[in-house]
């Protein structure tokens, strides 16, 4: 090996070692001058190639090229490292206060009563119930007479009715008129429907009572439908709504369109039956009225009560939604105060 070759190899080792101590852009420039500048060994060797013996030229040429490539590769790596480090420093200066609030997108929400309705639709759909809707302005016949509440019957006192200026036309006081409407449409098929919708009663508007509210009614008609079927179906509904361990109780009640009639209570989901403000200390929440469809109603619907039987149940969803979200005023639902609606 020629002396010059050894010298060039040593220069590469020296250059890489020197580069290790370089950390700033300035010292990198100095390094470049030392090892790749005009007076560097590399450039001087190139300059003195002509003075070399003819047979030595290719050998030295190859060696100096290797040296140059080696130094340049080391330089490129170092430059990248220095750049990354300085960027990292810039990034650090850009650190955000991640606790500042995010920008709010405009978000639409479903109205809380519509949310409750959807939940009920889902639960009953799972049990094979279809949805049937009927008019909000009804005839006296459908709202009362066909439901076994003839004119002047004492049971009419149970509903504070809005009458229209048209004789025999009322604002429906319950979704029950839909019972007879769906029966007349589907007789003699089996029926398994829910009847949702707005109903209206002449009441004082207070935090607890509304003139307009949404009811959901259930109707099952078929052969061999019993009180026990009703109880089982409603228990399933209560468990789906209030949790697997929800306890229910049935107590006697009266509705002209069902017999026997019952009121179903569910154990208060707030206090678990110990008594609290939501259940007014009783441990129970009244959630729905129900009963076996009255033979007279079946007849009006076109079903022979000697052959068919059925059950019906009705619940007001405004009140259950109030309880569910601890809402203090039933009027919020229809006042549509944006501050209220935005919470859902």
């Amino acid at each position, binding site marked *: 090996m020629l002396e010059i070759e050894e010298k060039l190899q040593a220069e590469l080792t020296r250059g890489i070692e020197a580069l290790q101590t370089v950390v700033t852009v300035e010292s990198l420039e100095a390094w470049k001058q030392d090892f790749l500048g005009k007076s560097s060994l590399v450039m001087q060797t190139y300059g003195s190639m002509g003075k070399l013996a003819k047979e030595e030229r290719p050998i030295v040429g190859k060696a100096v090229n290797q040296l140059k490539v080696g130094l340049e590769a080391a330089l490129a790596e170092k430059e990248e490292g220095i750049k990354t480090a300085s960027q990292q420093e810039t990034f650090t200066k850009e650190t955000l206060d991640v606790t*500042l*609030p995010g*920008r709010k*997108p*405009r978000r*639409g*929400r479903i*109205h809380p009563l*519509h949310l409750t309705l959807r939940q009920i639709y889902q639960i009953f759909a799972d*049990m094979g119930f*279809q*949805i*049937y809707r009927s008019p*909000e*302005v009804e*005839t006296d016949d459908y709202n009362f007479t066909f439901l076994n509440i003839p004119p*002047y019957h*004492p049971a009419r006192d149970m509903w504070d009715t*809005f*009458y*229209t*200026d048209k004789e025999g*036309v009322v604002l429906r006081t319950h979704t029950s008129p839909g019972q007879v409407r769906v029966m007349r449409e589907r007789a003699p098929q*089996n029926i*398994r429907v829910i009847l949702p919708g*707005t109903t*209206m009663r*002449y*009441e004082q*508007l207070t935090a607890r009572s509304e003139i*307009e509210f949404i009811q959901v009614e259930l109707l*099952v008609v*078929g052969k*061999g*439908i*019993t*009180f*026990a*079927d009703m*109880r*089982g*179906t409603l228990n399933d509904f209560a468990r789906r709504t209030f949790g697997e361990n929800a306890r229910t109780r*049935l*107590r*006697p*009640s*009266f509705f002209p369109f069902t*017999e*026997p009639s019952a*009121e179903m209570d569910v154990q208060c989901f707030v206090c678990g039956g*110990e*008594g609290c403000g939501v259940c007014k200390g*009783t441990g129970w929440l009244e959630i729905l009225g129900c009963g*076996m469809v*009255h033979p007279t109603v079946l007849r009006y619907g076109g079903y022979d009560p000697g052959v068919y*039987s059925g059950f019906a149940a009705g619940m007001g969803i405004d009140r259950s939604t109030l309880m569910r979200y601890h809402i203090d005023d039933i009027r919020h639902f*229809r006042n*549509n*105060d*944006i501050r209220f609606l935005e919470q859902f």
Partner: protein
Amino acid sequence: MKAPLSWIKDYIDLDGIGIEELANLLTNVGLEVESVQLVGVEKPAGILKNKYFGLPWDKEKFVVAEVVEVNQHPNADRLTLCELNDGTGITTVLTGAPNMVPYLGKGRLDQPLKVAYAREGAMLYDGHQPGQVVTKLKKTTIRGVESRSMICSEKELGISEEHEGIIELDADAPVGMPLVDYMGDVVYEVAILPNMARDASILGIARELSAVTGRPLRLPQGIALEDGGEITEKVGLEVRDTELNPRFMLGMVEGTQARKSPYWVQRRLSLAGMRPIDALVDATNYTMLEIGEPLHAFDYDLLRERAGGKPTIITRTACEGEKITLLDGSEPQLDTQMELVTDGVGPLSIAGVMGGGETGVHGETRNLLIESANWNFINLRKTLSKTRINSEAAYRFSRDVHPALAETALSLCLKRVQEWGGGEVVRGVLDDYGKPYEDTVNRLSAENIAEVLGQEISLEESTQILERLGFTCWMEGGELVAKSPSTRTDIETGIIGQRNLIEEIARVYGYERIAGKRLSDELPPQVGNPDLEAEERIRDIMVSIGLQDTLAYRQTSPEREARLFIGRKAPQGLTYVRLKNPITPERTVMRRSAMATMLELLEYNTKFRPGLALFELGPVFLPVADEVLPHEALRLSIGLTGAWDVASWDRPQSKAMDFFDLKGVVEALLDGLHLEGVKFQSTAHPSFHPGKCAEVRVGEEILGVMGELHPQVKKNYAFGQDPVLVAEFDGEMLVRLSSEVFINRAISGYPAMVEDIALIVDESVPAEDLEALIWQAGGKLLVDVKLFDVYRDARLGEGKKSLAYQLTYQAFDRTLNDKDSLNIRNRIVKQTKNTFGAVLRSQ
């Protein structure tokens, strides 16, 4: 109905059943307990499912005592000093009770007065404050006389609101006995269901308890009645219409006195919510509360005076123009449907509702005629619907009373009048029972019961339940035959009668004992509800765009809806579904306009948020000529105002929304519903800004209208500067035209070419038409056209505008080249020039 426990216990032994347990028994049998009033009794321990109120009387502090002498207070005319023995000795008690005044100066009383006495430290209700305010009895000095204790009125003990006089207990009250042991009570307030009107009586409630506990019922005994007799000489009777008046009975007591009833009677009436008056009135009220049959008492001498001899009672409907002044002083309008009790001279009472003021009993009544009758409840309800009179009698008769009760009630009432008011019962009664009621008979098999309940209840157990409810039962051919008791009229016959009996059996058996099953009948034919599904899809799309779902009141007023028009002048001839009995002047009709509702919602909420984006999907009510019911037309309304973006801490509030924000929302919705062939057309509408209103068409059909609210209409509402944007669409059409299924467009794998083009056209050229032509000219390689700028400048020329589009070209089978794009571009330039005179704007 308020039922004192002490009274119920007259008819059934309830020993060993706690206060709370009894309340639950009542509720479970169908008599829902609304509250339990504790009268002196301690509240039961444990978790209580019922609402309790009331005040316990400490046994040490409240006792029975006797006043032995009444003296004048030395310094006050209206105060008396009572010498009182409370069982431990004599003390002086000061009282201002007016009912002590008559005993003044009598010295030692022959018959000491028994009173309810409260010692110092007793907790009682303040007699001088309205309502029930608990206070502690403390030593005071009144006009120089020290007072440490007191003699109580009913108010202080929580029995009634009466605080004028002190209670005068019955003479047999044992001195020194704790008051709670002597007359402590529990009052159950129960809700009476319409089909259990027979239980609007203490005996009715006791009968239900007998059925549910199995304990025997003790019926009260009246005097024996015989038809005819001496009474026929005193008074005559004529019933004109037995349909309206199935039964009418008269009994009579002579030489009686309207003195005070025994205190236990007064106390029971007070606790049951009726004011004690005197022995005669109390006897009728007591009997009504006891068995549920209302009675009416006449002063016989007044009737005789009117008639100028032997009076005759005539029941008939009112004649045209007849008048009556009732006990409460009111003069209701009578008409020929209303049944009256009259004598030859004129009306005495509105039958079953309320008596006249002229012939009723009064303090001096000596000879008493008692009416015990039965009235057609439907006719009576017609009367009530017109006269709007509330009375205890009307409450019961309007729910149908069994005619047999008239007889029971008369016999009990005559006995009570004689016992409490003295005198002699005149022999015999008048009884016109023109329409005897036939008690129903029903047959029931074990299968009948199981078919309805889904649970077997044996005929033996069913028989026991029905018998305890008063039915007469026997077996016949393996079936249970049950005859209804002569106390109720609610049991029908046939399949309904069977159902009535099954309900009676089930509720006493206990609903809680019937286990639930899962439905196992065959599912009905499966049908969906496409309308509802589409509506919910609309809701989801609107919410996904960022709008808030709302729910509207159906009731409004024409005045509110008139705000939609300039000067609040609605067009003539708008028909409404009008309410006969509106709850407020703000809600007199069913709404016609969803837009009116939406504007109110925006108006209400603008003060809470700088930007609003709401929608509502619900019906409006449009009367239809010759139809009974209105058309309930589904409407979708949209309302926007203020900024769309919600301001944040580093970004200022963005610009207020305008027409095109609304249009964007509408387009997004229609796109989401996959409606085809939608067109927006400038239109005029009285509620909208004349230049900023569009009609939305789908093919030939008009979906609705949208735009910026007319500035002069906006003045009708409390809005600020920002434009108010509203749309109202025909929801049924949206539902009908929307489709869940659509044809998905394929996506090309080859690169697209994008270029911009700006065309100068006359102002009058609608952007929509120009764009349609670009699409047409572009051919199938043109896959997207986006308008990105509209520019107007004098240099373009008067009445000209420049529309700049970004065009995207793409093929499905190759990469396009410059030649392709030049071809497309040239076609577009040429055709728009030919059709609209469009000029390509130089860059």
